[in-house]
């Protein structure tokens, strides 16, 4: 059974990285809920997932000195949130929305952790052969 060590944990490893990055962005939004002119930001999960699923995309490296096309969630571009209500000072942070998203993200992070833990326990019992 040839298993690359990188693919042991499947998508969960990258999901965990993505979730922690998203938590950081949402935390920045909440910290700046009173900053004039600050625009709330967030990741677009759908585009990141589709980026991960397309194997090589349209960009091919035909030469080993080409600049590598990074497809990890880290390279995903941030988008600005569409504000639900305008504020006079140009701030687009809606604290309640950000709180809800932050909680949701924390739950998703824990879900990824649980999946990872399950995989690790599975591999461990397979290794021990008990």
């Amino acid at each position, binding site marked *: 059974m040839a298993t690359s060590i990188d693919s042991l944990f499947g998508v969960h490893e990258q999901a965990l990285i993505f979730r922690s990055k998203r938590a950081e962005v949402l935390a920045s939004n909440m910290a700046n809920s009173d900053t004039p002119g600050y625009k709330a930001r967030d990741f677009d999960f759908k585009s990141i997932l589709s980026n991960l699923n397309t194997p090589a995309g349209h960009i091919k490296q035909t030469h080993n000195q080409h600049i590598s096309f990074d497809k990890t969630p880290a390279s995903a571009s941030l988008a600005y949130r569409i504000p639900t209500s305008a504020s006079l000072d140009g701030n687009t942070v809606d604290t309640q929305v950000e709180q809800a998203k932050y909680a949701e993200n924390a739950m998703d992070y*824990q879900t990824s952790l649980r999946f990872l833990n399950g995989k690790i326990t599975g591999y461990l019992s397979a290794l021990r052969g008990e």
Partner: protein
Amino acid sequence: MSLYNIFDIASSGMSAQTTRLNLVASNMANADTVSSSTNETYRSRQPVFGAVLQNELNAQKSNSTGVRVLGVVESQAPLRQEYAPQHPMANNDGYIFKPNVNVVEEMANMMSASRSFQNNVEMLNTAKQLLQQTLKIGQ
């Protein structure tokens, strides 16, 4: 690890909100400070928040944006002028000057600041729990 950056973000938010609370406290304390000329009168002080990108500080690319107090501005609202010739601080024309502090506004400001502070604390707690769970992974 991005979760560690949340500690920086939350603490920058907390310190900014503390500055705001401090200014509210000094505004409230000086709400009734009377003086005899417009120059000496206390004026309501308000903080100006600004976002601070951490990209310049960290070598690695990060998306965290903290907050800091860019400065403190004095309110330009007109002072309250009162005719009180019997007052010990009254000027030659018999007028005293009271600060332009709006106590109701300051109370609302205080509640908003304390809610934001609590929000930052909760944020930090959640990040801490997530990190603790991450440390326990595979056990």
